[in-house]
């Protein structure tokens, strides 16, 4: 019963975040509807996307990266 309620709350939280972020994203990306030059960051999203994807991949591979760093540090010390 409590678990069901908790799941429902999680769903409502996700709904609220999505519903509020959509109009915000729409307004922020308004210049994209015209051209890159109309944008205050002048097309920096082209750089931002790979960085975002790199962060996601790093988060997914966190444990493997930690191990790799440990091996490198061990080798150096």
């Amino acid at each position, binding site marked *: 019963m409590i678990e069901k309620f908790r799941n429902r709350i999680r769903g409502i939280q996700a709904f609220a975040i999505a519903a509020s972020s959509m109009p915000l994203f729409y*307004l922020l*990306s308004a210049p*994209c509807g015209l051209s890159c030059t109309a944008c205050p960051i002048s097309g920096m999203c082209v750089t931002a996307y790979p960085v975002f994807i790199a962060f996601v991949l790093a988060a997914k591979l966190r444990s493997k990266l930690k191990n790799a760093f440990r091996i490198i540090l061990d080798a150096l010390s």
Partner: protein
Amino acid sequence: MFMNAKLVLPRNKLRYLALFAGFFLFVAPFALISRLVYYALGNVAEPDLHTICMRMPLDWIFGGKFYQMTGSVMAAFVITILVVAIFVGPLFCGWLCPVGAVSEAISRTVPIPKSLRISIRDTNITMGLRYGFLAGFVAISLLLGLKMASSTELSTICCRYCTSSVLQNVVNALFGEPSSVEYWHTGSIIVLVSWLLIGGIFMVGGRGWCLFFCPLGALSNLIHKGGAKLGFFRTEYEPKSCKDCDECTVSCPMWAIKEDGSIENGLCINCKECQNLCLNGAYKFKRGRAT
């Protein structure tokens, strides 16, 4: 991953054939459905995917611009999809949509490790996000419809983030008619990356765009959920036959299978992947009141 693909392909071949046909039915230079409609109406214009736009009628409905729907081929097309969704579920999404088909095909063919693919196992969160984005789409359409927000920069939301338009422009380029450079300097790059890279390659099932950003898909599923409650066709889970192998959960492109194995009709597109994979027949496409 390739092992799975080999297992799945022959079993659900009718669906893959339908998705392949969907490309030729809707995307120019073929656009067979649009050509047929134009021929019937005596229109001599060259049709493309935009002839039967799947998003603009929704913007008209939510924005209160009903007068634009009169005699519109697009509106008739979208209303047909929604009516079909009441009785047999969002079959267009699962069996014909070229946008979903392309991202799903890319997801199945690009060999990245499973550990890099993103998925949400909790259907409550997926549902919340999906319908939250739909609510946002409705709110923006309504605000723009009421002219509470308008400027040259704020074009209609359906055209700003249009996967159909991006797909058509990519196909046009492949057939030797590249779009203007300006087109690729706009939000279309955001759409391309979100649709094929993040939503396609990096999401389990490759239907991230369909799940979170397609307003027609979300609306069809909402209607299907209502139709399923009324006893119309839906995919139903039979726990007695389930052997807890978890193959269905992994194969579902819409993340519609709950932890207990039951189907969330607000996400299911009746693609029959679970039915075809389940050797024990735990999923059945049926109608009638829920038992």
